[in-house]
């Protein structure tokens, strides 16, 4: 099962590149939510239940809400 962690992190590499190059910031927030899910599965394989509980609250619950708040108060589209 340790090999699964490699697969998840390989997907996370692709996703991090997409987050960096995306110009629609709301879409970038959605991507980072999925990125959080992949990191969470990696933590499952690495056997860290405490960190999972902290990370799921921060990443899925609070951080997405915070970033949508910030996007709603600044601009949505990034001009490259």
């Amino acid at each position, binding site marked *: *099962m340790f090999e*699964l962690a490699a*697969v998840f992190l390989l*997907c996370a590499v692709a996703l991090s590149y*997409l987050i960096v190059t995306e110009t*629609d910031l*709301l*879409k970038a*927030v*959605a*991507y980072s*939510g*999925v990125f959080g*899910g*992949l990191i*969470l*599965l990696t933590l*499952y*394989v690495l*056997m860290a*239940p405490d960190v*999972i*509980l902290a990370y*799921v*609250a921060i990443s*899925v*619950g609070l951080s*997405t*809400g915070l970033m*949508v*708040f910030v*996007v*709603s108060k600044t601009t949505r589209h990034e001009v490259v």
Partner: protein
Amino acid sequence: MIETAIYVLFAIYGLSGVLYFIRLIKGPTIVDSILAADCVSLDVALIALLLSIYYKNSFLAVGALFLVLWAFILDVFAAKYLTRGEVGT
């Protein structure tokens, strides 16, 4: 028997996860992307519960509950932002 079945299930759920993932990237509008992100996060919860059965360890299961519980939080936030412009009102 269960271990083999879990490997096969990982493959199938992973394949559908990848298909959702492609829609997440392609999605012509923002709502398509958020819908796909929702489906992927539920997939993640299911795979997490399957992992906790594979390792026969009940401590790993609790995280999946919170993933299911808060899967709709991004939908509601983004919908409120798209319709009202402000989130706090």
